[in-house]
């Protein structure tokens, strides 16, 4: 027991937050699942390696370079919640990652140390194309249950009633990796940054999570020589910033996408976002299913009806069921506000 207490305290002291993009306290989430086990007989663990956000590659990076630490993090979760209480551990990977990394992960799992979890691990993949919404934790739970992939109403939260209505600990791969680092006293508040786009040195980098965007670009020798802007936190849902707005840390899933200001076709970029959301909307709620479709339709018209355009953006933001629909306005609004409105002047 004392070991458990110390691990959860360590996680709390380290200030770990979920790395799926939501930023929820890891210690609180783990404790919530443990508390639910007082009433329910067993629980599940899900490792979320969906990485559906375009432009973010850090889960793949962890799977290829830090498989042992990731598995160790899962092992620690299994021990923390109680080995006998964990019925199964679902390892969810997108199709590409499964093909590339499953064999390596399986060989790590065959280590004697991990024999307790090896037998419980079920690899789950989505065979089709990348699905954005399957990264949303309750949508992922539906996917594993074989139901339509769409988010669930919350509450109840997965911690109390998740997979098959049992308590479920669901964390991103980076979170399990971080827990492992914390337990081994190696965690120093760093996070993974994916740098992408019109840069010379694309890749995944590990730096302090307090670093600003411009520092990351500088350190990776990626400051463009041309006029540029960036999108942080994902190529779809991320916020768009000017080159003079970069003295702040990266938020959400840590990614920095660099765009060449002159070479970027404004209409193409907006259409890309709208098309992405239209294709990825699961269809569950009116605002997102219909709103993303109508926005895409509008973007294909010669004369855009901007009144309707912004009405739809507002409704997506204010009335969508889940974070997917609510996030579409982020790139669109920030692009208009930070880039296009300045260009006009």
């Amino acid at each position, binding site marked *: 027991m004392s070991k458990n207490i110390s691990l959860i305290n360590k996680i709390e002291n380290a200030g770990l937050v979920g790395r799926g993009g939501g930023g929820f306290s890891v210690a609180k989430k783990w404790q919530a699942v443990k508390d639910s086990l007082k009433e329910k007989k067993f629980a599940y663990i899900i490792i979320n390696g969906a990485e559906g956000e375009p432009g973010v590659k850090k889960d793949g990076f962890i799977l290829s370079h830090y498989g042992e630490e990731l598995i160790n993090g899962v092992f620690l979760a299994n021990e923390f919640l109680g080995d006998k209480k964990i019925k199964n551990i679902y390892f969810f990977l997108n199709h590409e990652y499964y093909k590339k990394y499953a064999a390596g992960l399986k060989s790590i799992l065959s280590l004697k140390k991990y024999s307790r979890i090896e037998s419980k691990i079920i690899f789950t993949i989505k065979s089709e194309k990348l699905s954005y919404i399957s990264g949303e934790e309750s949508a992922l739970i539906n996917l594993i249950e074989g139901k*339509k*992939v769409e988010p669930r*109403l919350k*509450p109840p939260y997965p911690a109390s009633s998740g997979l098959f209505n049992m308590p479920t600990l669901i964390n991103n791969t980076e979170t399990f990796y971080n827990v492992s680092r914390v337990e081994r006293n190696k965690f120093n508040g760093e996070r993974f940054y994916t740098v992408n786009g019109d840069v010379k040195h694309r890749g995944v980098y590990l730096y302090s999570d307090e670093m600003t965007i411009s520092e990351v670009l500088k350190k990776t020798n990626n400051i463009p020589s041309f006029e540029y802007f960036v999108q942080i936190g994902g190529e779809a849902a991320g916020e768009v910033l000017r080159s003079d707005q970069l003295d702040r840390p990266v938020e959400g899933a840590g990614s920095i996408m660099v765009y060449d200001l002159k070479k970027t076709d404004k209409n193409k970029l907006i259409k890309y976002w709208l098309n992405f959301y*239209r*294709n*990825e*909307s*699961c*269809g*569950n*709620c*009116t*605002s997102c*299913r*219909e*709103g*993303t*479709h*109508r926005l895409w*339709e509008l973007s294909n018209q010669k004369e855009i009806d901007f009144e*309707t355009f912004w*009405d*739809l953006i*507002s*409704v997506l*933001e*204010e*009335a*969508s*069921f889940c974070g997917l629909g*609510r996030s579409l306005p982020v790139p669109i609004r920030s692009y208009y506000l930070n880039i296009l409105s300045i260009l006009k002047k």
Partner: protein
Amino acid sequence: MSLKINGKKINFKQGQSILDVATQSGFEVPALCHHPDLSVQANCRICVVEIIGRDNLFTACSTIAENGMDILTESPRVKKARKVNLELLFGQHVLKCATCTLRYNCELLKLAAKYKVDIKHFKNRKVKRKTYKFANAVEIDGSQCIDCKNCINACSEVQKINYLKMDGVGINQEVVPVLDKDTACIYCGQCTLHCPVAAAQEQMAWAQVELLLKNKNKVVVAQFAPSVRVSLGEEFSMPYGTNCEGKIVTALKKIGFNHVFDVNFGADITTITEAEELLERLKNKKSVFPLMTSCCPAWVAYVEFYHPELIPNLTSARSPQTHLAGAIKTYWAKKQKIKAKNIIVVSIVPCTAKKYEAARSELKLNGQPLVDFVLTTRELAFLIKKNNINFNQLPDSPLEKLFNNGSGAAAIYGASGGVMESALRSANALICKSSKNKTCDSHLEFKEVRGLAGFKEAVVNLDGKKIKVGVVNGIGNISKVLPTIHKYHYIEVMACPGGCLGGGGQPIPTTKAIRQKRLEGLYAIDKTRTTRRAHENIEMMEYYNWAKNNNLSAQVLHTKYKATKSSILSVKKNSKNPILDYVSFRC
């Protein structure tokens, strides 16, 4: 605990949703996908409200009320979001208002008026969607569907049939039948009852009936079912459970029906046929038990597909609508000197599966169906409104002679447990009549089998013999009972919750509270009838004995069943340009 809605302080109980709190305190919050029978989905996004101090809007149906919340249900933000969401919904709901049975109480149109919605803001994207037709009973028109999934949930959560699913993703998703050899539609129509926009609806027959009413060579006879009389009034803002049988007769005559009869008379025929079968089976030790009711055609469809081994358990007694139609086309036809083939019998029932039953090959007389057309309660309401009949002001009309309006036992056919109680009333009285046992208890009421519980059971004393009876209220409860079914002597099953009063063809909305009111209405009728046992209905017994003496038992009293391998499905393309558009009528 308390919160504020539009500035007014309101107390509430922990765990209540904002929608419940608002509705109970008189604030109208519109909601389309919300239905008290179903789990909360929050996908239509129409019930959004503003909570002061919080970003975004919240769906009232899914947000639990919290102490101190300051809620606005009609703020400019809320109105705007509802307007846009409604415009988006209209962009996927092809307007077929002119022939839509929901047209006079269409929630979408009401909201469109309230929120000044431009219903043609977005070009409709669903015009090419298909319509799935389940036998001749129910259909789901993809071109009208707003993707709320209430139909799917009614089929899976309430009925536990799981015949419908959502296929595809995003704007390409579509409600489709599962093409699985172990699953079949039972035509109960609960999908239609829970659809807020009539995309799932009965396959309408009113237009064909209208044409026939103009045909002078045909005698068009209407017969209306027990539970229609306590639900139809809802369509005209009468209190729930109001008995309007007299007004129904007047309305049907006004619409143009030549004669109007009451299916309650048919229910008495069913009762006596079934009670005699029960007593007959009890006499013989080798009889198959339990005897099971068969007047619910969705239940029969269920047995024929899912449990054909139970076919010998089903009573051979026909259902009330077929019993009365048989009497009309033989006994009444003879007395009126009309050829059966010139008579058109139109049933008005709370049910969609009766459409399927009417078309069954076993229920034909000389190759012609006994019941020619079946209209739901909703279709009748539609016809009354379409003919501009002021239903509320109509005088009551009596029924024509020969076929009366049945015993009290017939009235309760519309409620779960009613068929069982009716049969027991007669069986008990008949057995005591011939019993030497002077203390034979021929009591009238069997209250143990009443009410809206999912399963009800009782031990009944029939002249010293204790028989075990069970009532399954809603097909969703059947799986719990099947494993122990052989412990019973007599089982009643109604596929719809509450029985026919909650049938798939009843007025929308139908909720548990409304079912309860309709139920009370039916039992109130039972109390007022001068005869309360089927076999005490003298006119009915005259007919019954006539049919038997004329060797018509097989043609008009009893029927057969057969195992089926699938339900009947057809897929129809929708016309690209529906002619019947919103523009063509004014509410």
